[in-house]
């Protein structure tokens, strides 16, 4: 009927790896956040693939929870970035060694 789950899992693995390597390589905080979003999406894709393999709706509920966590994480993270910028601290992670107020 539909494609096997391994296809989706392999794609999710590739997406997760790209996100992880991007997180390690890039220094701009905003781009690093986007890489975290890529990794969360890869996890969601894997969860949906598992959900279809095993039946039931549990995997979809998990993916929904991951989306909620991702949304709150982005709100807090972008708030921190705006606060950093307001104090004239750099947006480059190499320059952010000291986090005193």
């Amino acid at each position: 009927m539909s494609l096997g789950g391994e296809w989706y899992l392999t794609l999710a693995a590739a997406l997760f790896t790209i996100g992880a390597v991007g997180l390690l390589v890039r220094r701009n905080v905003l781009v690093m956040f986007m890489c975290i979003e890529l990794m969360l999406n890869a996890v969601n894709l894997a969860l949906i693939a598992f959900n279809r393999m095993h039946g039931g709706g549990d995997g979809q509920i998990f993916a929904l929870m991951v989306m909620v966590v991702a949304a709150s994480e982005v709100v807090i993270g972008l708030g921190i970035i705006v606060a950093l910028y307001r104090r004239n601290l750099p947006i480059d992670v190499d320059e952010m060694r000291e986090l005193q107020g």
Partner: protein
Amino acid sequence: MTASLLLAATKVDLAVFVVSAIAILAGALGVVLSRHPVHSALMLVMTLFGVAVLFLAQEAHLLAAVQVIVYAGAIVVLFLFVIMLLGVDQAENLAYEPLRGQRPVAVILGLLALAQLVFLGGAQWATGAQAVAGVAEGPGGNVPTLARALFTRYLFAFELTSLLLVIAVIGAVLLAKRRETS
């Protein structure tokens, strides 16, 4: 008749999968490799839409809608908003590498992780993969089934997400508030 129909369905599924996989991977590479944060955000939209299409292909209709509305509609717009607001939309120099040897090591680690993940994803003992027989749907399709599970079995987790969202809102307000002292 049925066999040819099944074969056609598989071909369509394969085409959908290949097109969205290309969109997803190209978008992900674009996020990582773009010099400009705005380009990264737009590439992220492409990836998110590809993931939404794959959700649809796996009969997760509600999640596909949520993916487009929440991710592409809210999160990426928030990203773009912050990028434009802060004016950090200048291109950065990607050739500059402060830590020597960081990128090769990161790529090697990534390839190792990819090998492990692909191995685990293809292993039957790890995924417990059963024959793919389609999603076990309750009466009324995807959304009522999900809603029933969400409001009965997973009610506590659902309430906890509301707490999490409230905490996120409070945190965002606190972070955005200007400090009066000093």
